[in-house]
């Protein structure tokens, strides 16, 4: 299969890569760019562990061809921290113990980021809906919901970074 040029900006860094056009976004992120923070729990779009932001929208990177992201901006979990300073959601996740094994955490953080970008003041029900697709087998979700709510309530400021 002939390789194609992919121009993609990931976490504000521009990349040009030659890839097989059937490559999935998750494969390019993990295998070509070494961004292994994005996980894969099923490869069928059912678990949302691979959630990233594509031009600000949350997508399942196992269900998007990398070429569909040509020219796009992608954000992954690695882009949440800024020069070692954790984002409000990351800090809140730590305080609330909103992760255990950590395998779904990247996807959870990205879905939560997308949710808060769209709706900075979500109700508990909005939060439940917002991360409804993200499966977690460890936490029972309630700590994650509390963590997101705390950020929405302004308990973790962007400036406190």
């Amino acid at each position, binding site marked *: 299969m002939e390789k194609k040029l992919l121009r993609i900006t990931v976490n504000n860094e521009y990349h040009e890569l030659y890839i097989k056009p059937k490559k999935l976004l998750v494969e390019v992120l993990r295998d070509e760019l070494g961004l292994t923070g994005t996980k894969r729990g099923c490869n069928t779009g059912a678990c949302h562990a691979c959630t990233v932001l594509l031009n600000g929208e949350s997508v399942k990177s196992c269900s998007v061809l990398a070429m569909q992201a040509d020219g796009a901006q992608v954000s992954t*979990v*690695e882009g949440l921290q800024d020069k070692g300073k954790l984002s409000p959601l990351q800090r809140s996740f*730590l305080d609330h113990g909103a992760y255990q094994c*950590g*395998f779904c955490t990247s996807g959870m953080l990205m879905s939560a980021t997308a949710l808060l970008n769209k709706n900075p003041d979500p109700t508990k029900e909005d939060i439940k809906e917002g991360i409804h697709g993200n*499966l977690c*087998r460890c936490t*029972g*979700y309630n700590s994650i919901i509390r963590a997101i709510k705390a950020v929405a309530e302004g308990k973790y400021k962007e400036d406190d970074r």
Partner: protein
Amino acid sequence: MKKYNVINTPVHNIDGIAKVTGRARYTFDISLPHMLHGKILRSPYAHAKILNISVIKAESLPGVKAVVTGQDTLGIKQGIWRRYKELCDEEILARDKVRYIGEPVAAVAAIDEDKAEEALDLIEVEYEPLPAVFEQLEAIKEGAPLIHEHAERNINVTRHIEWGDVDEAFRAADYIREDWFRCSSQAHVCMETHCAVASYTPEGKLTVYTSTQSHYYIQVLLAWILGMRENDVRVISRYTGGGFGSKFELDSAQFCSSLLSMKVCKPVKIVLSREEEFMATKRRTPMFYYLRSGVKKDGSFLAKEARVFTEGGAYTAMGATALYLTGFFQAFPYVWPSYRYDGYRVYTNTAPTSAMRGFGAPQAIFCAETQIDLIADELGIDPIELRRKNVMYPGYEVPGQAYIQSCGINQCLDKVEEWIKSRGELPPNRGIGIAAYGFMSGGIFNWFDTPYAFSSAVIQINIDGKVDLYVGSQDMGQGSNTTMAMICAEELGVRVEDIRLHMGDTENCPVDLGAWGSRETLMQGNAVKMAASDAKRQLLEFAAAKLSPNIVYDMDIKDRWIHLIARPERGISYFDIVKEAIRGKDGQPIIARGHYTPHRKGMISPAYSFGVQAVEAEVDPDTGKISLKNCVTAHDCGQVINPIGVKGQLEGAIAMAAGYGFTEDLPMDEGKILNPNLVDYKILRTTEMPETNVFEVETYEPEGPFGAKEAGEGLTNPTAGALGNAVYHATGVSIKGLPITPEKVLAALKEKNKKKKK
């Protein structure tokens, strides 16, 4: 001074920043130079002879580097029950016969996953299908197809537990009730599927990165079936994406990647697909349960008889332990003056059933607690009252089995009763059900036949006061790394940030049997505490010269301050003493050791956690749909070590156990699992989770580190039973088969209405 500086304070998970920044490197993320990718060919038959396997076409596909079949193995039948040869019955690559759909028969390593997948289609396996049997009650019948030559009527293991004069006690009973129950299977659904990267090098050494709950078990099992020396096999497992009982046996990813790597001397990575994970890894043991209980009019328990037939699947796995534990926990957490249990584990042509969080106890407690509510109803006694009358107490001895030291179950009943009262009158179609439970705090099972301590730990203190703590325990998300760092910091008198914890590597970590049977907090915790105590004693020896105590034990270290206990202001900095001590020892590091092996603590566990859970559920009478509103747990785990961790374990257990109660199931057709994906297999999602609340009931467990007991696995035990009882109190129908689906509820309601009309 405070009693504790670290224990019972909310401490961030020490791996937390790595996890929330995506830097935590799981086996799934490991990539080595020149690494190949492996895939496994699995049996499409539930029961068949293998007549021939031809790999020539697969081997000659460009890009394929190696193909292995059972003929490339030593043909060793393995299992964790190494003490009992007949229970080691599983070859990981079948040679002569396959016994379940999904059993591995060959594996391929190629330049990428697609190529390996393509090669699988080119392997030609000639099977001769055999008659198969899928259900335990069918498989045990005379004349059923024989799955293993040695197992007559497919009986794999039997277990018997008995105390008191059961028959006499039944004769004295005022009321006797018997019920049959069916407990379903459940998949672990770790978010990281089973995976391994094996790398064999010309030195004759094998390194295996893998997602496991016990690197020690995997090291020893691999060495055994590959014919290697144990310490020529190094197993590394830094981060594990969930375990829940599914990852302490040797699995096909580990074994096949190792075999393939040995063949080509290159690293080989195998990651099981989600479908393989469902079809061909082990799962919770389905059970067919008969219960007969005899009680007095006033509700006093007299006699209980339990008979269980478990669907074993094709191999023993850890199923023999589940069979014993379900029998033991059937009588828990009550005082039954007489009890008789007979368990039969029956081989079937289905994927093997084994350990899963709770290890046989969730099944037992679902049946027991459902029946207790039915008895309460018959006798007109309040469910809380009936339980209060019969629960265990500190100092109770389970005859011939176990000795209960700390036990806060009575306080747990009080707390839950208070909460139920606070709910007042419930709206229609709502009910609250309760279940009482207990669990072991560290399984005393040495089926593996190891001469090592159950747990051990090593500490080295560096010149700057940084403490290297080496543990053999495995953190799979439950937080044991943090628990161990906290125990070490508290005992040594330093802060959690002073600890650098090393785990998950057989090359430099001491042996620990692994994270199963709720072992880590108590067993590894005791080993860590002992090592820290030894290190502290060494420091105090040097401090004695400065502080002139009467005896060395008149001093202590708290929060990096070495001081006289009677006059805490008289002291000296921990950092200064560390420097002095190391200088005084010619620059030798300070090294300390700790270990733990239970000492005359019965057959099951050195200690037991207890609790009572209440579930409030609403049932839609038209659709049978259940929604969970509240789940309140009063919980005795001894001294809480990390409140963040305990709460996380509690809520996570509720999600998993509620799933077992009403949404999760593995239906099969002729041995084939019908829902091997995350759409059709329904684990709980955010919207199905109830509100959760916990009351910690404090007890002190003399056998536990700082009085602590297990706090993760036992919490999986009560929910299905409490949920079932909530449905019963909401609708008047008691469902005796798991999962409690809308169909079952509707059918039972219909039946009930029919009877009413008559």
